[in-house]
């Protein structure tokens, strides 16, 4: 009996290098499965229609809106969420820069911005300020007015590059 949207299917998701097994409805979104079934609640939901970017995760290195896809579609991909950014006790330079530059207030948008900025900078460490502003304007923040987010991303870009050189 296939085709019933509430028939559950077995899936395996690789989140931050750990494989999670879950039985979910095929219609369940990736963000819901990451949060409910994998227990990684750092990825947030702000709109569920692909505009705010609070749900941004990296899928094989590419920033995507995890509210806009089904979890079943993400099988076989490497998913990275905010919980996977730090190594051990060491914060990722982007996390550190957000703290140093007061780039968060309520912090609800923060995981999305962190993943977006990290995803872009890992691929394009030399991205221009203008292009970065363009990228950052694809996510919404209601608290900070963006000024300090832009500052933090610039600072982290610098640190990430220095570490790579």
């Amino acid at each position: 009996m296939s085709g019933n949207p509430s028939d559950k299917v077995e899936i395996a998701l690789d989140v931050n290098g750990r494989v999670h097994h879950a039985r979910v409805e095929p219609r369940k979104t990736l963000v819901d499965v990451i949060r409910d079934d994998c227990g990684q609640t750092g990825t947030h939901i702000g709109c569920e229609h692909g505009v705010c970017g609070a749900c941004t995760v990296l899928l094989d290195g590419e920033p995507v809106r995890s509210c806009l896809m089904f979890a079943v579609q993400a099988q076989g991909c490497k998913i990275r969420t905010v919980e996977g950014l730090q190594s051990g006790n060491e914060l990722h330079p982007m996390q550190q820069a957000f703290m140093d530059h007061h780039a968060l207030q309520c912090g609800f948008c923060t995981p999305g911005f962190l993943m977006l900025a990290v995803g872009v900078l890992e691929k394009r460490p030399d991205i221009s300020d203008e292009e970065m502003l363009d990228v950052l304007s694809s996510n919404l923040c209601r608290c900070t007015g963006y000024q300090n987010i832009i500052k933090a991303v610039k600072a982290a870009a610098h640190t990430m590059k220095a570490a790579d050189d």
Partner: protein
Amino acid sequence: MTETADRWIGASVTRLEDLPLVTGRGRFAGDIDFPHQLHMRIVRSPYAHGRLKSVDAAAALAMNGVAAVWTAKDIADLPPIEFREGPNENLSPYRQAVLAAEWVRYVGEPVAAVFAEDAYVAEDAAECVFVNIDELEPVLDAAAAPTELRPGLGTESTVCRQGYGNVDTAFRDAHTIVELDVSIGRHSAVPLETRGAIGRYDAARDVLELHGAAKVPHRNRESLARMLGRSTGGVHLYEGHVGGGFGVRGEIYPEDVLVLVAALRLGRPVKWLEDRREHMIAANQSRQQRHRIRAAIDGDGRLMAIDDDFFHDQGAYLRTHGARVVDTTCGILPGPYRLPHYRVAGHVRMTNKTPCATYRSPGRFESNFARERLMDAIADKLGLSRIEVRRRNLIAASEMPFERPLVALGDDVVYDSGRYEALLDKALAHIGWDALQRDVASRRAAGEYVGLGVAIYVEKSGLGPTDGARINIHTSGEIEVITGGASIGQGFETVVAQVCAEMLGSDYRQVRVVHGRTDRIEYGIGAHATRATVMTANAAAVAAKKVRDKALDMAAQLLQADAADLDIVGGCVVRTGMIGGPAISLGDIAHHLRPTSSTRGERDPGLSAEGWFSTSHMTYPYGVQIAVAKIDKGTGAVRIEKLLIAYDIGRAINPMLVEGQLVGGFAQGLGGSLLEEFRYDERGQPLSVTFADYLLPTAQDVPFVDILLTEDAPSGVNPLGIKGAGEGGIAAAGAVIASAVDDALGASGTISHLPIMPQQLKMMIDAFEATGAAAASSGSG
């Protein structure tokens, strides 16, 4: 600031709040789950106005995994949602019932509640609840003649009137009269996290818990306990992380009551999370007002009187604030200017739209816009510069404290301190006003639509009357501060920690700040009206001083010294000025003060104390905003090129956080001025229900905001001398943007409505260009 110094007040230290938030370990409402919980989904009215004939839940109830479906008759014993300030007989017919019974009055009004095992199932089932409504003609214009929502229930719920002097005489004697009809569109906080509430009844303790609370947990506990007929001892609210408050989150809404009642009656925890569309039609909206305002002016451009008749589009119900936004508008409208005669009538009008309440800087965003439009119009009419006309009317520093026979937030208006003209001068110098004017003039001569705007305003903060805090130093040396404040992202924990650390000679990272928990402290004012920093920080300072005295007293015995010769440095009590001498840590002192300690003597156990702070009046920070706006000739789009906020905060505990508040607030205000509006069609159907049709500002839209923070006028009404900053960025955003765009059009007075839409500007510019009226001809004064 060196990391070892103990001077924390005034230091831009990083926030204690940040670590869990940047590592994905926050605990927002959606992150809270309890075993065996049910999920709630609300069935909402699809019509703006109608008679509710019946609700058919049979199909939903038959679905697998559905535990219950409730309509109004299942909770007929519940009263409507209360006003926070207590019963008000005249206004009570306008309160909202938890579920609509006979009538529906806005699209989105809760009609039924579905409870199911899974959020997806609850949503499916809600779609199978059939609601039978006879649609009625909606009331949509708050400024139209009053009518009735239903027999006996008029659309004018109340009129707030304030004023003093003899307005009619002033208008008769006036040299000039300036009249405007200005309006502000409907917009709101729209935090990035939608609302959420989790109800849980712990029968073992007989405690009903509400998780996902925010803003005013203690006040809400009282209201909820009354509504549910429980003792406040048996109701507890828990605030976790809050994804933006801004006035909207943390009020009591129907959904909060429902999860609690369902948790009690269904015997399982109940979780409700709002989706974005619901948020756009169900959470409090705000701002919509139309002012018919006029001023009587003498021959020198001095205000003799203001007479304002305004209409506030309240939407379908009066929510927890009652008519407070309108009252505040009335009380704060005169702003920083001397005003001998004043009369205002604020009509609170009911319409068939989502109910309205407070949004960051309620009543001030609106009144600053109306008043500053008026000041620009006066300048224009008298041929004075916009700076000069303001200068002539500003209240002088020598007149402080300045009393006005008005009331705002139930408090008599007394400006505690202010050097308004000095701040104006500083702002003009900082931005290089004269050079900027020349630059704008030459760009205009070259055909650009660019203009300069200015706005001056008085904010209010630190609403009393009283708040308390308790400090307990653990034997580990950790300083625990238990407050009744609330944290909604504003850096509350860090600021309170800084104050306590300074008083206790310790590192602020040694301080743990508890907030938003009714089970830890009996009273609390929460976080609204920019009061948390002022009230709670001062209360914490009082408690810290007591703890300090107790620590020094105990240490004096242990170090065999006079307490007067001791100081606390780096978390240890030492002899003042003696480096390397004997020292005893606060943790050790706490150890000596254990109940069982033999060294404690007659002292009460514990290195702890409670402190209270009371104030009879609010404190009034003030600001000047200056903007440069450019209109794109081709599209009519407005770009704010430059923006300065000069703001006097009395004393800043953490300047970095103050600046963050001001910048973030301005960005929101820019949204309400240029992008955001809740629109409704002629049947009252909401048209702005997603982020695609309600536009929040993005990183591209918000300019670099320059902040000039001054501390020229410390507050005289609290010992720390602080004033709040939470609303200072947004308060004059509409006023300054309108002023700049108006100037860019070179035609003073054309901007009379917010948000300013590109289509409208494009039409004006096309008309100018067609008639050859050069934009360069006037403006920028």
